[in-house]
């Protein structure tokens, strides 16, 4: 099963001299060489693709959108009414984010996003999905027992809170707008942005009340 492979993280130190390359590593290298030799891929473009999603596009983009929606009411209204154009106004657009809807959490409604059929995820705002989002247990259970899944993320919600699960079966991509944490009235947009977690924008957690001591 997919998550059983989680144990052997090498956290990706490119060339670990003490370890022979795995079978799959060799297989992928062979495929890449073949495609380069055939003139079907440019190795520099491959490096650029990796660099884009490893170092440039990530949840900081979504956090920017969320923090701005907390402090700027006009932007918030724009974001909820025409998410695509509001998000594009901050410079975020493109692949796997062509059609976006924003889901607003309230005291009585909590939104949670999943893709039961594959791994659809708003790349321009959150980067590539974490392993658990793509795993069989999350895809199977987020729709059928969302409260139990949330508990596995340490998130307990009262039964008075309605959980709305969004299964990303089309090219619509969903971003959760989490509630602004308590005790943050004095914080700037930039400081707020630091408090927005990726998980809160997928909907598996809520944001804890702010205190100067929680680092």
């Amino acid at each position, binding site marked *: 099963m*997919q998550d059983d492979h989680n144990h052997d993280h090498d956290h990706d130190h490119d060339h670990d001299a003490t370890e022979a390359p795995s079978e799959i590593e060799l297989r992928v290298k062979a495929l890449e060489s073949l495609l380069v030799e055939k003139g079907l891929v440019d190795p520099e473009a491959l490096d650029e693709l990796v660099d884009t999603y490893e170092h440039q596009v990530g949840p900081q983009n979504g956090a920017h959108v969320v923090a701005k929606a907390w402090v700027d009411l006009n932007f918030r209204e724009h974001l909820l009414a025409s998410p695509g154009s509001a998000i594009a106004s901050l410079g975020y657009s493109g692949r796997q984010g062509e059609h976006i809807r924003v889901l607003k959490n309230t005291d009585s409604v909590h939104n949670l996003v999943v893709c039961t059929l594959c791994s659809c995820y708003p790349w321009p705002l959150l980067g590539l999905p974490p392993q658990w989002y793509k795993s069989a247990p999350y895809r199977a259970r987020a729709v059928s027992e969302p409260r139990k899944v949330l508990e596995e993320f340490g998130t307990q919600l009262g039964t008075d809170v309605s959980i709305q699960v969004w299964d990303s*079966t089309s090219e619509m991509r969903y971003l959760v707008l989490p509630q602004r944490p308590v005790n943050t009235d004095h914080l700037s947009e930039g400081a707020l942005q630091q408090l927005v977690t990726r998980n809160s924008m997928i909907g598996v957690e809520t944001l804890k009340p702010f205190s100067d001591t929680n680092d």
Partner: protein
Amino acid sequence: MNGGHDLGGMHGLGAVNPESETDEPVFHHSWERRVFALTLATGFLGRWNLDQSRHARERQHPIDYLRNTYYENWLAGLQTLLVDSGLLTEAELQSGSCGKGFPDQEIVLTKKEVKAKLQEGKSVELPVAEPPQFVIGQEVIVVNRHPIGHTRAPRYTRGRRGTVIHQHGGHIFPDDHAMGDRTGQHLYTIRFDAGELWGEDNAGNEQVYVDLWESYLTSDGAKQ
């Protein structure tokens, strides 16, 4: 198709066990980076579309699909697409060495183009001449159909009653798109009560929202 990928509601898969957000790397192994990049870069050759690429992963034996890691499934899908489209032969894949035939002149993604191409994305909106058949607030039933090809109506929704809560206009219809045809259909978001999907004993204060195309839905037998 009722494949190993259609996971909503499956039992026995265990806990989610998420890695901590602050510790998890984007890629866990070097080869995953390359599979990711090879898949995107070859996608830009224009020989297949997103639904064909999803279908290539789904067509694996369900045991393989579930046993594989995520990027192993991407690799399996990519190999299928390369062979199906004639860009590589099975023999070349197996041996890892180039045969005699080279593909026709392909327009290959270059480093300089990467940013712009990613930023541009690809809209799947496709206007439909006919007005939408269903209106917001209407009850609909998901047709109990089990196509052997690619489809985006999850098994757990089929035969279930839901309510239209959003009309998205015409979007490319994935079942046809996976066969290489570009047709448009109205897309809707349908809200289902958890009890309707999973039985009243298993449900609380929860709703599931699923994006479904017009031909997946019917008003026959639904409340008027």
